[in-house]
């Protein structure tokens, strides 16, 4: 009996010690995480005030160099505050509002530095400076509690609890939403782009569920005997479409077709893929045959990539007037390596169909444009987005830099104003 009591006492003491140790480990971990969050919060709050000052200071100067220095600071600080805010747990909605607002401010500064349109900046920024000040004050009020605790995570967790109807961040959230819409309204290009991705341009008549199924069977004859499950997109979807899931033997997949006109959005099938039997050339031919079936006859080959089950082959629409490739109107196919079967088609961009404005291409002397050890290997005319939702005629240059090793770059240059829009390192 006595021995049992001793064993029991030792066990209880051991368990207690283990539990204390576990608790202290957890507490130490919580304190570390809490310290990191507090550091990010402090960083965000301080830099927010610097950002407000930089916006205000940018209105002081007429001198180009002085204003540029402030614009640089605004771009850098907005990016740093974004980074800090995205690393603290303040809830998805508030985080989105903050990142959106700061991102637009930084982008505005970058754009102004590039275009030199200081008048527009001076017109817009006094109000934004005032708004930033008020946001900064509200943020300070909302976060004051975080500094009162003794490394306790509970305050954080209460604030971000989804079930908590009121949090100290509500004011900041609402103000941000309000300022975001007023300070940075959608530009014409942004609004056009929004309409484009929401397929507002589709004017075809609505097709029925039965017609949608007929279309699927025509486009993809291999699955014509499959078992189909058709659902319509939710009422709140930006564009209505049919979501058609199918199952046929070893094949399982889906097709999405727009309700207006039954245009193919995407198709994807999963099935076991056997040993590769087709050559690269045969795969490209198969891809072209599939395109014909899908009715995409105005496209040209862009690139292909092999992986262990399939090839991904990309095509882009050819602009009829100058034969330049419109990359924004791309279509991607996934071809099985064993039989060349179409495993996937993505025509989301293709059906958005860009409107191309006429543009002129001014020639570039590559010898003066690139460094001496750079060799231009290929030049192609393409249309691509300039980052401001405009399709620009560009030179797509494959250039090789002959340094210690050969390095290949894809450089996209606006053909009219010769701005470099994109540089990609190719391996």
């Amino acid at each position: 009996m006595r021995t049992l009591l001793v064993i029991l006492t030792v066990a209880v003491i051991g368990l207690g010690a283990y539990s204390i140790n576990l608790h202290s480990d957890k507490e130490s971990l919580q304190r570390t995480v809490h310290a990191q969050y507090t550091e990010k919060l402090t960083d965000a709050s301080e830099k927010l005030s610097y950002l407000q000052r930089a916006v205000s200071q940018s209105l002081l100067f007429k001198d180009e160099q002085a204003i540029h220095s402030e614009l640089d600071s605004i771009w850098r600080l907005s990016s740093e505050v974004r980074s800090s805010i995205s690393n603290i747990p303040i809830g998805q909605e508030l985080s989105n509002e903050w990142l959106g607002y700061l991102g637009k401010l930084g982008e505005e500064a970058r754009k102004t530095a590039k275009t030199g349109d200081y008048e527009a900046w001076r017109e817009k920024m006094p109000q934004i400076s005032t708004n930033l000040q008020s946001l900064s004050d509200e943020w300070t009020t909302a976060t004051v509690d975080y500094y009162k605790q003794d490394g306790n995570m509970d305050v954080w967790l209460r604030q971000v609890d989804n079930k908590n109807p009121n949090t100290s961040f509500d004011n900041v959230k609402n103000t941000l939403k309000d300022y975001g819409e007023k300070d940075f309204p959608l530009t014409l290009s942004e609004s056009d782009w929004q309409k484009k991705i929401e397929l507002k341009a589709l004017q075809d008549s609505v097709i029925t569920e039965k017609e949608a199924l007929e279309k699927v069977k025509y486009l993809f004859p291999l699955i014509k005997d499959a078992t189909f499950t058709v659902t319509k997109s939710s009422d709140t979807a930006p564009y209505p479409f049919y979501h058609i899931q199918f199952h046929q033997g070893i094949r399982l997949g889906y097709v999405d077709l727009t309700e207006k006109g039954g245009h193919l959005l995407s198709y994807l099938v999963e099935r076991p893929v056997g040993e590769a039997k087709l050559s690269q050339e045969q795969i490209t031919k198969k891809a072209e045959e599939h395109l014909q079936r899908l009715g995409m006859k105005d496209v040209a080959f862009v690139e292909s990539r092999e992986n262990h089950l399939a090839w991904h082959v990309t095509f882009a629409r050819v602009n009829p007037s100058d034969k330049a490739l419109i990359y924004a109107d791309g279509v991607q196919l996934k071809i099985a390596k064993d039989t060349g079967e179409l495993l996937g088609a993505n025509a989301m961009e293709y059906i958005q169909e860009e409107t191309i404005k006429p543009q002129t291409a001014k020639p570039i002397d590559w010898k003066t444009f690139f460094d001496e050890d750079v060799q231009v290997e290929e030049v192609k005319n393409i249309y691509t987005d300039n980052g401001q939702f405009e399709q620009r005629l560009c030179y797509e240059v494959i250039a090789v830099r002959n340094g210690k090793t050969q390095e290949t770059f894809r450089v996209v240059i606006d053909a009219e104003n010769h701005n470099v829009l994109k540089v990609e390192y190719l391996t």
Partner: protein
Amino acid sequence: MRLLSILFCLMLAVSIVSIPHNDAVAFSDQQITRGAYGDDVIELQSRLQYLGFYTSKIDGKFGYNTYWALRNFQEKYGLPVDGIAGTKTKKALAGHSDYDEKWVKAQLKAGNQFTYYGGKPLDQQVKKNNTGGGGGATASGNNSGSSNKSGTDTQIPPKYTERELQLLANAVYGEARGEPYEGQVAVAAVILNRLESPEFPNTISGIIFQPLAFTAVADGQIWLEPNQRAKEAVIDAMNGWDPSENALYYFNPKTATSKWIWSRPQIKQIGEHIFCS
């Protein structure tokens, strides 16, 4: 005399067998060019490196580095310069180089850093992988150094990195491994859609590790080893597929507690997830 003849025949047979198999038969009969991947490309890169034309990693991916090396070889050996490894080119290449397939593949499998230059003992061209990962200096002091442990063995669009592919596969597997394939591609697409949106961090890792953004990060399931299916789903999303139809969020209606997520405009449901904008 008969014995001599037999001996002679035996010697001849042995000498024929011992001739290195360095003809075009070594390659498969497929014509390969940019975009290709696999054993033929490993052999092509090895042979080009053997002759000093190819100085990058031997990784089995026919990218621009392989393309220029092949063109330089074609130019030097009087072949049509097209960057395509067809029958003639492969025959010429096999005739002028040696390829120790077993050795090259053993190095790739072990994740060793190695090169395959001709005229240099192979044991001096390898740096054994002791850490289970690639990186670091190369054995030969050249700028190249192959190792298939430094990333995955897949080809993705150049705007993404292999590390991003790995991270996305972890996220997809942790978040949606029980979902249909379409649902897994959709989860990867949501993360990529966030990358394009100004309201989210501007890196894939920033998006995935944004506090409270993904359940798999909070409960540690993101650290489970993703399977090939999750990786395939990410590759499809990186190549443009988006079964979510431009969604920025998804949630499981059975487990979601946030009122806010229910207020988002819904697009469609795939498996257990509702996708919304």
